[in-house]
């Protein structure tokens, strides 16, 4: 008996508690505490160690240029205007390609979300095309659209199209059926239901899809710029790689990371604006 009780909440050796025993706390753990400065500290330590390792010659500046060198390379990019030039080129490609792919994807996704036949036809086609890495189609796009901008738009657009289709029709599926039934029970016409219920109800899912498709666009702009691009962050990074300028390369990678973070932040802002009701 005492054996059994030992592992218990109440520290007692007898099956009866003689005097009042305080209830022992057994919650705790598995809760998230905040460490507001930990992230900053971690970044500082990481960068410090990295710089230090380079300074004392532990890491060759060729293989791992110190943060100061990366910073210097970045400031060169800023002052000689190449940052802006490359950024502009990449952002322009993302904007056009992403917009085309998203519009097309939403159109097809809506058709598939609402029409049973469109869905029956679309789902297998999409599942067949979706898993194809779009970089594998680059050679084909070059054949079809040439080495200029159109092939880059096409690469990004196609990459964005399929996830958008999937996000859109799943979003429509996830519009609560009970809201549609409610509208029907009040005699709302089909078009009103579509406009007032299906569309706003699908918005969260569609916006979540934007998050995925924008990161795909970022990957694909880099891939597409590896071929025949004079300017662009992807072309820039590739060139730095070819020239073995690792500091410049890392500066380019840093710019990509910032681009990704910025796009993500913008989408969050958009979500917060449009989905205040959640």
């Amino acid at each position, binding site marked *: 008996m005492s054996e059994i009780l030992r592992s218990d909440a109440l520290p007692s050796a007898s099956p009866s508690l003689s005097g009042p025993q305080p209830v022992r706390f057994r919650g705790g753990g598995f809760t998230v505490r905040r460490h507001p400065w930990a992230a900053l500290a971690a970044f500082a330590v990481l960068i410090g160690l990295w710089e230090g390792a380079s300074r004392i010659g532990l890491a060759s500046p060729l293989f791992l240029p110190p943060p100061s060198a990366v910073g210097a390379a970045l400031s060169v990019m800023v002052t000689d205007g190449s940052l802006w030039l490359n950024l502009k080129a990449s952002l322009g490609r993302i904007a056009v390609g992403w917009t085309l792919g998203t519009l097309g994807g939403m159109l097809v996704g809506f058709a598939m979300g609402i029409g049973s036949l469109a869905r029956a036809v679309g789902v297998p086609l999409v599942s067949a095309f979706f898993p194809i890495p779009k970089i594998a189609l680059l050679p084909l796009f070059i054949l079809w659209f040439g080495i200029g901008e159109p092939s880059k738009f096409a690469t990004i657009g196609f990459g964005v199209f399929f996830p958008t289709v999937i996000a859109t029709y799943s979003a429509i599926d996830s519009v609560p059926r009970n809201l549609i039934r409610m509208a029907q029970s009040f005699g709302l016409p089909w078009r009103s239901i579509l406009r007032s219920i299906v569309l706003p109800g699908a918005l969260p899912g569609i916006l979540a899809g934007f998050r995925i498709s924008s990161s795909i666009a970022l990957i694909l702009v880099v891939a597409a710029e590896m071929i*025949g691009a004079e300017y662009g962050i992807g072309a820039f990074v*590739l060139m730095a790689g070819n020239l*073995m300028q690792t500091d410049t390369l890392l500066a380019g990678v840093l710019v990509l990371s910032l681009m990704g973070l910025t796009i993500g932040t913008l989408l969050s802002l958009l979500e917060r604006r449009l989905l205040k009701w959640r």
Partner: protein
Amino acid sequence: QTLEKSSVGVLALSSSGPIFIAKAKGYFAKEGLDVELKMFTSAQQVPVAVASGDVDFGVTGLTAGFYNLAAKGAVTIVAAQSRDEPGFPLSAYVATNAAYEAGLTKPSDLKGKRIAITTVGSTFHYMIGILGQKYGFTVKDVTMVPLQDVPKMVSAFKGGQVDAILAPSTVSRQVVADGAGKIVGWAGDETPWQLGALFTGPKTIQQRRPVVEKFIRAYKTALAEYHAAFNAKDSSGALVKGPGYDELVAIIAEATKQKPEIVTAGLPYADPQAKLLIDDVVNQVKFWQSEGQVDKTLEPKSVMDLSFVGQ
């Protein structure tokens, strides 16, 4: 007696011929070296492999990337490889039919045109640079379209998306044979230059100097043989087959997995003493520096260690 192990990174091209010959004919073994050949697919990778210690030596074309590695003390040129030389058709300027008809008929007309190259900082990029130096234009006066590899350059060329390409002889001749364009000149005739080099890491020179010496002795033996067989001219200046021609072609064909007739069509010039065109190497460094692709602080002569070839 056991042989000392060593390795060399090469591309499967005729320009690496002397290495293949030295290996096949046992010149390395004679010097007491067991040299392993590691094949790479692009010129960028060979100096990287030397820098990272994957291989001891490398033989390949000189690119801006190479000089950046040299600037960081990762590689040093120790001997010459092939060079562009008048009378040796190695790299051609090829114009599309449309561009040709529009007046692109000689190398100097390339100014202001769209030219496909592999990458920024490649040998093709430099060749446009020295052509400009000769005819008074700069790289900024042409539009270079980097397409990563030769096949893509060819498709862009055939699709009329560029006016011209700079391409190796075999590719150029194929393009002409397909009726897709016209050769308007050869880089060797216009702008002779030091296309490639044998290089190793400074650490190897410091710590294993005897190995470097042995390697270069064997390399030079093979190089002399190569020069005698392939670079001999008769009194009229026409190329003639030198001693051992067929044997050496067979060795190279075997190593590059090419048909012998392809090999014979593109055998570059190589200096029999493995001597470098020092002025051109200096010019290369200065050119890349002016292009902003190589660190301005790099002292051009510091990329070479000429003690092994006695220059």
